[in-house]
């Protein structure tokens, strides 16, 4: 019995789109591969896993963007968290990937081995349960991720208030996608000729919020889903625009993404969070690119409750690690002097090697 998604992995159809991509590439002046950026780590992973990156290497240079939540977490935020994890009577609750990211003095995984109480969860419901079961401890959830995971954290805070859970708080590292893309493309340093936009983020925000990419910054973009054919289709559309069609932000994932997004999820985010300046690995501080907890929910804000402030960190290995340039699409992972030698998935030096969706890890 064919499954619902088989048509999105159909090799025959893929072959036809690949033919179309090659045909379009011949219409673009110059024989070099066209630099496109897949913003989302899941797309980077898919390009490696399906072999598409390798298959199209002569026509498209896929560069990973700032769309892996672990990768863009700033070193000083991470160091603050690592320091905080050893405080007495704290249970730090995280989504898995954060565990292994190296800070200046070790990772959360190492702190765990030293006795820090760090719990991995799969759902915010698990966080509520942990808080209920450990009334005598302070349960601190680290909210990481973009518009996709922020609604869950917002609901967690609302639920904590409704259930009068006094021992639960949130350290928000949540970030927003549009501001960093504006920074990336507006810097004047980028030679990216098209963006593959994250379908999951757009499912929440709606396609429309990305219009500025084409209208103000002149860069073509396609919102893509996460099956191989989605990415191939997006690539073909971007090459069409690179070949002369006027730039636009096209919805290549209409089976999930609407113009205006998921209003319930957006309402949850807007109810609890407010845009604040956030620090991004590779980009520095960007105004309005993070989600801080609103005043009216301040009792659930771990950074206020415990006075967690970003540390002034500068790691010795930073001089060689090229995560920053990789996240901006200026370098490919193989251009980093540490790639595969000083930095491997077993012994990551930079954040991009940690998550399976990090650029370096997906190239490895």
């Amino acid at each position: 019995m064919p499954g619902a998604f088989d048509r999105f992995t159909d090799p025959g159809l893929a072959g036809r789109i690949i033919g179309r991509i090659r045909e379009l590439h011949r219409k673009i002046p110059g024989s070099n591969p066209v630099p496109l950026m897949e913003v989302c780590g899941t797309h980077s992973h898919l390009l490696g896993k399906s072999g598409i990156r390798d298959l199209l290497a002569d026509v498209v240079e896929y560069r990973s963007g700032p769309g892996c939540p672990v990768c863009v977490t700033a070193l000083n935020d991470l160091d603050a968290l690592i320091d905080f994890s050893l405080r007495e009577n704290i249970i730090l609750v995280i989504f898995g990937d954060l565990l292994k990211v190296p800070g200046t003095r070790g990772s959360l995984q190492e702190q765990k081995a030293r006795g820090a109480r760090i719990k991995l969860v799969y759902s915010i419901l698990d966080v509520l349960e942990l808080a209920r079961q450990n009334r005598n401890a302070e349960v601190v959830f680290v909210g990481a991720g973009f518009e996709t995971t922020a609604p869950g954290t917002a609901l967690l805070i609302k639920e904590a208030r409704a259930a009068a859970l006094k021992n639960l708080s949130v350290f928000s590292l949540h970030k927003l996608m549009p501001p960093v893309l504006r920074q990336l493309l507006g810097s004047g340093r980028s030679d990216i000729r098209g963006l593959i936009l994250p379908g999951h983020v757009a499912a929440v925000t709606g396609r429309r919020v990305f219009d500025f990419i084409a209208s103000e910054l002149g860069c073509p973009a396609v919102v893509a889903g996460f099956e191989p054919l989605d990415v191939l289709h997006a690539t073909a559309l971007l090459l069409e625009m690179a070949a002369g069609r006027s730039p636009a932000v096209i919805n290549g994932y209409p089976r999930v993404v609407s113009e205006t997004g998921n209003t319930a999820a957006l309402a949850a985010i807007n109810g609890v969070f407010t845009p604040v300046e956030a620090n991004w690995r590779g980009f520095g501080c960007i105004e309005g690119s993070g989600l801080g907890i609103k005043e009216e929910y301040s009792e659930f804000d771990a950074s206020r409750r415990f006075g967690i402030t970003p540390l002034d960190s500068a790691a010795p290995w930073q001089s060689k690690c090229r995560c920053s340039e990789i996240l901006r699409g200026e370098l490919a992972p193989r251009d980093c002097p540490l790639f595969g030698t000083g930095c491997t998935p077993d012994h990551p030096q930079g954040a991009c090697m940690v998550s399976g969706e990090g650029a370096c890890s997906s190239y490895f």
Partner: protein
Amino acid sequence: MAQSPLIELAHGDGGGLTRELIAAVFARHFANPILGRQEDAAICPLPGGRVAVTTDSFIVDPIFFPGGDIGKLAVCGTVNDLAVMGARPLYLTAGFIIEEGFSVELLEKIAASMACAAAAAGVHIVAADTKVAEKGAVDQLFINTTGIGLIEGSLCLGADQVRPGDRVIVSGPVGNHGLVILASRMGLDLNGGLVSDCACLWPVISAVISDFPVKFMRDATRGGLATVLKELAVSSGLDVVVREESIPVCREVIELSQMLGVEPYYLANEGRFIAVVPEAAAPGLVERLHQFELGRGAAVIGTLHEGSGRVLLHTRFGGTRVLDFLRGQHIPRIC
């Protein structure tokens, strides 16, 4: 209603309670003449041949999962390590480290499951040990098993036997066990749809090695299919070239692993093995495997080539991807 008894520290002190526990649980389920003597060491007859010895410790969470439990796993895991070396499993020892407060009823259920798996494999549990650790010092129950097996005739399996042109065969769909465990840990209800592949491989393997010129076998446990293929490539110095569309994976496994952000090729199996045979023997071996329940999904998945110890996966889109060892734990992604 009387509460079911719990394991106490005294059950591990070697005194009266220990003797009671042994009699009520272990001796009852594992009964055989060698164990029954209850001496300090089991005296086991060994017919002629080379002896294979292996040991493994089991600390699975959860201890009961769809398709098995820690006891079945502790028997099958060790038996399978003997079997893939071509050794007929004869004897097992079992060491139990039990957390204070563990239910005697569950312990008995696990012992019964071990006895059942041992019977299916044709092995006797000839020695056992029980220790009780303070509450919190271990997580419910850890089991160590050591297996002793016998290699008959001149059978010699190993990565040094394989040659370019040989075919790689997998005995059935991969990824089920690892995914079932991961899903159970996450509290996902599988609705009885997906169960662990945990099973004893000796009956299948004994038929295979007597009829086919097998050169290399390994069960694809931790690290999954990809890790075993990489071990084969590194040990032989050859490239293992695999076609993605020929690798058997159940639809439920594909869909659920996509949802969780893990890959079936890296998920553990507890009842699947990889075999390498000369090209001419491959179709016959697959056909033979198909006659067994455990070999129903068997398929030729790849070929060995001159190379440098790489595993190359040809994807269904015509791309090539390099598979490496499993790195670290399976950690579901953030988004």
